[in-house]
């Protein structure tokens, strides 16, 4: 049969070429790191690394990298390195290389020839050549030569100073824009690093199926670490920028904090963080965002009160009572539709539907209901999943004992699904707590709200003899919330200076507090999931 290829079961020792390949991979990863660092301005490209101008150093490394990659390929082709190359590099690599060379050729042509459509044939020629080259040769040549050549060409332009630190290319758009070296050099370095790193990883795996696996894994690992890196960077950056503002005027010591009375017992807190304990007023030493925090809390509470019973109830009906059919299908489509409806559309809806019904003003209540509507599909979907995950044996066992359906649901099904519901709700709340767009249209208050105007919902209830008999001015008043406050701070821009001594710090601190509030919901949610899963395993 097709057993044409018989390779030895145990691979011979191939440590030297592997060392070259891993060195090349290390250079590539290093170049990517330097490229990212210089994109963020941490390694300025007009400076020097160890006496050598950055651009020249990058160019040199790129040339070395390209040469190493080509060396690996040629070495394998000439039989110096024991590999198992496939007959060709595969369709993906071929098309990829063709594209890269098309772009490279086209860019060069349009730079040299200045305009016109000359870039098109030039790109087609280089792209076509790369395509033919990759497709027609064996994998060890086909997947290294084009990649190495890109690195050498790009590195060469850096080395020779064709593209130096002050290089600028006016794109000639009507709305003026230019490509500068500060962007192009790092970006090109990263791209070449990825390409050559992939080729080196392929060579490291000895080409063939194992080599491609290595190459793909390298890219996937880089991708995963990049995502985690971005996340870490975002949070760390906001924290570093936000903490000074948050801690402005913060003091620790007994009796310095404001007095809080809980159930008639007054406690004076031992810490004072004015940023989260004050509002904004002329008399304050330090301004804060207390009303926004209180507003956010009330919003979340309102949304949860509305959405959780509704969502869980609907989920119970769908999983326990309803037959699978038109209705469940319609509800599923509607829920998923609601889930993906843009938040601004919820805002518009709240604006036209809810606001006129709650006294005609933007109000806390309208915001609550709008966010509740947003939370509803999330709660419904996660509760549904949790309920479906409850094994039918539980229901059968309970039913076999002669317990009525509702009793079964209440005492067996819902408790078993509770962990899922709780976790899903917390994560959903984290999501809506940070939403800005809907409350923009339903609940906006002023940018700076004084501390004594923090919403006091419980104290606001009053009964009247007029319809609708229950009134709560606090609910019907506009208040503010953290996300909106941040938006207002951004749009207010320069005007901030009058109210806050250090507007930039104030903005970052607001962003940080918002991030803290939302992420703590997520931390609790994810923690709860781990806790429940752990407990489930132990039982």
């Amino acid at each position, binding site marked *: 049969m097709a057993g044409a290829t018989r390779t030895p079961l145990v691979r011979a020792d191939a440590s030297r070429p592997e060392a070259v390949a891993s060195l090349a991979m290390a250079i590539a990863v290093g170049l990517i790191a330097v490229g990212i660092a210089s994109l963020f301005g941490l390694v300025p490209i007009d400076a020097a690394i160890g006496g050598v101008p950055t651009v020249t150093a990058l160019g040199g490394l790129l040339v070395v990298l390209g040469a190493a990659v080509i060396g690996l390929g040629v070495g394998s082709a000439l039989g110096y390195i024991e590999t198992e190359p496939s007959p060709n590099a595969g369709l993906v690599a071929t098309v990829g290389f063709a594209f890269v060379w098309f772009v490279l050729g086209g860019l060069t042509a349009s730079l040299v020839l200045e305009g016109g459509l000359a870039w098109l044939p030039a790109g087609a020629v280089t792209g076509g050549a790369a395509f033919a080259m990759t497709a027609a040769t064996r994998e060890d040549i086909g997947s290294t030569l084009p990649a190495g050549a890109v690195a050498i060409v790009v590195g060469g332009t850096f080395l020779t100073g064709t593209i130096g630190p002050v290089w600028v290319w006016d794109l000639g758009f009507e709305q*003026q*824009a230019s490509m500068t070296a500060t962007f192009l050099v790092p970006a090109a370095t990263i791209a070449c690093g990825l390409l050559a790193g992939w080729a080196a990883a392929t060579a490291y795996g000895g080409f063939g199926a194992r080599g491609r696996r290595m190459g793909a894994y390298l890219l996937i690992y880089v991708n995963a670490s990049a995502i985690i890196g971005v996340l870490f960077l975002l949070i760390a950056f906001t924290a570093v920028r936000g903490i000074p503002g948050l801690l402005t005027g913060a003091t620790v010591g007994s009796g310095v904090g404001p007095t809080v009375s809980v159930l008639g017992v007054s406690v004076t807190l031992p810490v004072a963080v004015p940023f989260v304990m004050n509002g904004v007023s002329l008399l304050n030493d330090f301004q804060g965002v207390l009303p926004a925090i209180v507003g956010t809390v009330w919003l979340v509470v309102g949304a949860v009160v509305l959405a959780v019973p509704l969502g869980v109830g609907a989920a*119970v009906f769908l999983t326990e009572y309803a037959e699978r059919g038109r209705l469940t299908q319609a509800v599923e489509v509607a829920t998923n539709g*609601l889930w993906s409806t843009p938040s601004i559309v919820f805002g518009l809806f709240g604006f036209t539907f809810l606001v*006129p019904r709650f006294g005609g003003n933007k109000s806390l209540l309208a915001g609550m209901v709008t966010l509740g509507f947003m939370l509803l599909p999330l709660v419904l979907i996660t509760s549904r999943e949790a309920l479906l995950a409850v094994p039918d044996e539980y229901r059968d066992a309970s039913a076999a004992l002669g317990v009525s359906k509702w009793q079964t649901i209440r005492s067996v099904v819902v408790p078993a699904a509770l962990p899922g519901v709780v976790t899903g709700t917390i994560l959903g709340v984290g999501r809506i707590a*940070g*939403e800005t767009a809907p409350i923009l249209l339903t609940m906006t208050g002023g940018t700076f709200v004084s501390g004594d105007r923090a919403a006091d919902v419980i104290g606001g209830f009053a009964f009247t003899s007029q*319809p609708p008999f229950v009134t709560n001015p606090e609910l019907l008043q506009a208040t503010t919330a953290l996300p909106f406050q941040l938006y207002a701070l*951004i749009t207010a821009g320069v005007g901030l200076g009058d109210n806050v001594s250090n507007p930039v710090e104030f903005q970052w601190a607001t962003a940080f507090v918002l991030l803290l509030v939302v992420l703590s919901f997520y931390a609790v949610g994810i923690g709860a999931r781990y806790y429940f899963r752990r407990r489930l395993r132990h039982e």
Partner: protein
Amino acid sequence: MTVALVASLVGFLLASPFTALPVALFLLAAGVGWVRYQGLTARVLTFAMTIATVLILLLITVYITVESIPVIRYETTTVFGVPVPGLRLFTETRWDAVAEPIRYSMVPMIHGTVMVTTIATAVAAPLGVAAALFLSEIAPGAVREVVKPGVEILAGIPSIVYGFIGFTILSPWASEQFRTTGQGSYLFVGIVVGLMALPTVVSVAEDALSSVPESMKSGSLAMGTTDWQTMTSITIPAAFSGVSAAVLLGVGRAIGETMAATVMLRGVPQLTEPLYNVFYGQETLTSLIANNYGNAHGLQMDALFLAGVILFITVLAISIGSQYIEWRMHRKLGGEV
């Protein structure tokens, strides 16, 4: 009880101050029912809650559509003598609510949304699918336990925070890099929005990839293929519809993303010159609403609602499309729907 509920609903719809009366009646009836016939009451209540979900979607559709009708009527053009309502919204490119002739063309915003969504998809789709592959097939247990919550947290960072960082850091930086006049570019809004759509793509695609039966993967591995070959030839093709549904949902998220676009874009509704100039960012459908709701009234407000309708319909279509694709995949794999 049902009567009371319907009555309160009607009252609410009519914005009547007497709404509280049927609400109270309903609560009373529900309370009595709960005490006396708990099972039946629960069933009816949960059914009502189910209906409420569908009702909300219907209400949204009806209310924002109704609000947008005047502007559709205003922007009527005649084609071959037949008046076509709303056609001028898409044939002209002028948006001007102040100076004559007053026009509310949606074209610049649609262009902006398309630009941002394209860039965001180019970022989120490949990275998201690769990350999903990593999570479901490649990552060792411990790494997975770190990366998966990480992706979830990425979804949790409020869009306004992304927007704020984009506005204060990315926009000035990009403006300096590309020597543009003023700040705000579709390129960077697209990248930020792509980052925000990424978690959606990752989690949905990961679900799809893990739903491919283990026996299929083992079957391929036992043939002596590498796990990468198994992924590309068995797992991804088998989960293809699920993965494309994930990308579609990501696109939906990107279209509807509001705050990052609002604070990072210029807020001037016009086309970029040339059309593919990604270094300038004007206005998207979402940012149009967020930027103008405050000072808009009359026809302009209705035009904002029209933008909302366009968004809503597009995203709803995408959502339904992706559900259909997922449903087909489950049927093909022989699993439960």
